[in-house]
């Protein structure tokens, strides 16, 4: 169903659109972000600087962007999908040549007022292009090999560029996020079974290629996998992050040590305590109760996305909303699994809580699209 078929009269227009926003979702996002402000204030030792205040400003900017995007009809965004995808690919190519290196990876492009990570932007534009593709595609062709290869290429292009940076975390998120949209669009189960089988094979290949001339990953990536599998082998070296993270998290207990009382983060035993490992500070200071509450908030965010998507009869809007929700889910699930020692340390931030501009802005853009889909969904018969 394309927008031309919409009964446009049933779609709200003008400033009254604001009443049709998915307000519970927005409220949840603000709550999650507030938890982030609180934790950034705490890890700074009870100070708005250097993290909490900039984060608030960025979030305000993100909320503003979300509103703007939500007000624009979803069919406009569908038409923009190809352009957005093209621009993000171009930016990924640009960082390949002009990017600035941080943490051993080329990730940023300096726009003057902010440092943009095109790889973050790609997470949303990839969802957009895939949703638009399946909206366009005749549903009966969905599982035909030729029509499966096209989205695979769409996924592979940015993934390859991101892997070259190298950014393993984002690559995984791109592949998984893209795969989820394909799954939602109705691609046959057999493809996924085949891909999972191939994935297992790839893992075997990755490990067997180690130390040979054609090894597939960088040494530091292997080391991260090693320390993930057994952090105790190198507690002060490569395993330090994960060991200290688990100690801080576990020592929180039921109710935690109390706000601003987390000794491990306060005494700098925790690495990256304001970015990727911020969840450990929360878990240490607020315990299981706090950590589980945040997890519940995240699950609710995804739940509202799923509900909104299921109630949306516009294919593009529905796929887009589910894709944004899935991306958001992947962010927090990978991050939490990482700090709890269930997944390797791959550098995925905790969405809306970790300090960092690009990821937050991109997510808010994504939620803006989901809100637009929600506001402009077809109504009535």
């Amino acid at each position, binding site marked *: 169903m394309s927008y031309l078929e919409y009964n446009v009269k049933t779609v709200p227009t003008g400033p009254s659109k604001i009443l049709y926003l998915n307000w519970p979702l927005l409220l949840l996002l603000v709550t999650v972000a507030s938890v982030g402000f609180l934790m950034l204030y705490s890890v700074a030792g009870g100070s708005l600087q250097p993290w909490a205040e900039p984060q608030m400003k960025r979030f305000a900017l993100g909320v503003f962007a979300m509103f703007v995007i939500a007000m624009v009809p979803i069919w406009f965004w569908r038409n923009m999908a190809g352009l957005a995808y093209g621009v993000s690919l171009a930016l990924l190519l640009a960082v390949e040549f002009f990017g600035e290196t941080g943490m051993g990876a080329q990730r940023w492009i300096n726009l003057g007022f902010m440092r943009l990570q095109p790889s973050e932007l790609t997470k949303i534009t990839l969802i957009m292009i895939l949703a638009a593709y399946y909206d366009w595609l005749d549903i009966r062709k969905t599982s035909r090999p030729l029509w499966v290869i096209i989205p695979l290429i769409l996924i592979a292009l940015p993934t390859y560029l991101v892997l070259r940076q190298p950014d393993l975390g984002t690559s995984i998120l791109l592949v998984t996020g893209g795969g989820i949209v394909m799954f*939602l669009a109705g691609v046959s189960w057999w493809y996924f079974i085949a891909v999972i089988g191939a994935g297992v094979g790839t893992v075997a290949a990755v490990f067997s290629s180690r130390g040979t001339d054609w090894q597939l990953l960088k040494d530091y990536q292997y080391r991260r996998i090693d320390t993930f599998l057994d952090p105790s082998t190198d507690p002060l070296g490569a395993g330090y992050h994960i060991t200290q993270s688990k100690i801080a998290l576990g020592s929180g207990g039921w109710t935690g040590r109390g706000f601003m009382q987390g*000794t491990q983060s306060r005494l700098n035993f925790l690495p990256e305590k304001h970015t990727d490992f911020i969840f450990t500070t929360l878990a240490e200071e607020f315990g*299981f109760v706090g950590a589980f509450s945040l997890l519940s908030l995240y699950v609710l965010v995804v739940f509202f996305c799923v509900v909104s998507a299921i109630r949306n009869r516009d294919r593009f809007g529905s796929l887009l909303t589910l894709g944004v929700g899935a991306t958001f889910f992947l962010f927090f699930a990978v991050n939490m699994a990482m700090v709890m020692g269930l997944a390797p340390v791959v550098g995925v931030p905790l969405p809306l809580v970790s300090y960092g501009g690009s990821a937050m802005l991109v997510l808010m853009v994504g939620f803006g699209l989901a809100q637009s889909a929600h506001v402009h969904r077809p109504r009535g018969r």
Partner: protein
Amino acid sequence: MKRSPRDTESSMKKVTRRGAVLGGLQLGVAGLLGWRMRQMQVEQADAFRLLAEENRINMRLIAPARGLIFDRNGIPLAENAQNYRVVIVREDAGDVDAVIAKLQQLIYLDPVEIERARKEIMRRSPFVPVTLTDQRSWEDIATVAVNAPALPGITPDVGLTRNYPLQEDYAHVVGYVGPVSDYDLSRIDDDDPLLQIPKFQIGKTGVEQKYERDLRGKAGARRIEVNAAGRVMRELGRDEGISGADIQLTVESRLQNFVEARLALGLSASAVVMDTRNGDLLAVGNAPSFDPNKFVRGISVSDYGDLTNNKYRPLSNKAVQGAYPPGSTFKMMVTMAALDAGMLSAGETFYCGGYHELGNRRFHCWKRGGHGWVDLDKSLQQSCDVYYYELAQRVGIDKIAETARRFGLGERFDLPMSAVSPGVMPDKQWLRERYDQSWRVGDSLNASIGQGYVLSTPLQLAVMTARLASGTKIEPRLVKSIDGVEQEVRGAEPLGFATEHLRLVRNGMNSVTNSRRGTAYGSRIEPDNMRMAGKTGTSQVRSVVVRNQDVPWEERDHALFVGYAPVDNPGLAVSVVVEHGGGGSSAAAPIARDIMLFALYGEMPPLEGYPSSQRGRMETLLSELPLRDDFRPSDRRGRA
């Protein structure tokens, strides 16, 4: 393009169904995350909490104050002095070199010390205080404190270090402490964490070493919170520990000081003064001595070389380590053995013609012309050797050795000093075991005049004399009390010799000093109520007799004297050994007499104590003694 409504309907159903599947999967993953949280934060929380505390909390030991050591009158022999230091903290100093240069303009800094400190500063974390210089004067510290604003990162600091205020006097008795070494750690079985503190001071010799555990005390601890870099963030708790126990010795410092000063005139000598009633060692003197404080601070190589290369062996505690042939001081033992065996009566006489023949060997008396007819009293008085050759031949070495051992010879006394020697009290069995030889009569003859295999320490000779004087098995005692607990006096029971026999020997010893022909008459004590009995000894280092003045110092005879006083009511026993000093009567007896007089008076003896003919000479000698200023006669402190 157009699609039929059915298609739209079915495609929407598919998205809805797949969306539900995805939602279910996501919920499952979220459940797994929640389960993991619960596992870590609820079930394993205690284990992780413990790990977190281990991360965060460090224990820093607080060294307890070491126990003090006092003499019997409470004069401190070992104390904890304040050690003024200057420490620097790199991160506060900024430009370390500039700050040190500025400090150098204010107080003198040893360039070697500074170089060492500079290296340490660079090696340590920037917040660790490093000692730039220590053992500074109060003036230096005040200078640094006043200029503190111009010296960022520099702080004057004060710590405790061991100090021996009487310096040389107790170097051998009290001993000294020094930084614990790897050798110490391997040698002593002690898991006290204090020993792990770098440069922690432990007793190395003497009382400091033997009573290390009492003196050390129990470590306190500071529980501190550190961050990941090891910086101390705050103190969480403090346990001050228990200070070491104070130890009071039996020694008397004014006497000890006098003994040390008086012995110094004899080049290499030692003396022991003992209370015959309770065994208290009042003085254990050695000359030459050394300043133990040098060892506490870390003695320089050249100073240490001077001490070890000195032929008078200042490091040796000769009073308990030095084993010398006792010479004629051993004759009392032979007499007691013969009397106890019933093989000698008081009036029995032997003829001394200057030598004694055994087979075709001649054993000479020290007096070539002989003593003529000699009875017990005269044998001791004039120290006739032939008399004792006869007794030894009659009694045999085993009886002599058994008797001597009852007087403490050959016994290793349990005293808290380093390397207390048992000496040698030989008998037939000993010679067989030691040298696989059988004992010959000639060996007994040599032993009877304290030569040959017999070796004894000044301490043993003092004990022997005290037992002769008291008739009891009195044991020497150096520690009077530990932490206020009085230590027991041992050996008050009788020795088990007939009183009459002891009286005969004591009379003989009285004749040595108080009869005109006695070998130590020149060293008599004048006042009747203080008269001293004694015995001289001259033990040969070489077998050929040459006039002592003509041979090098190392080959001269050892001079010995043992004595007790007052004769009528013995209270003090003394022994003096002057290594290679020549004759006992000329070298050892005068020293013993001066020491005894000082001990009896409890202060610098008045000239009335001396025979009138000697008073002029003694006045000069006593006034020239290098006594400590605070123990000079004018100072009436102490036992007077």
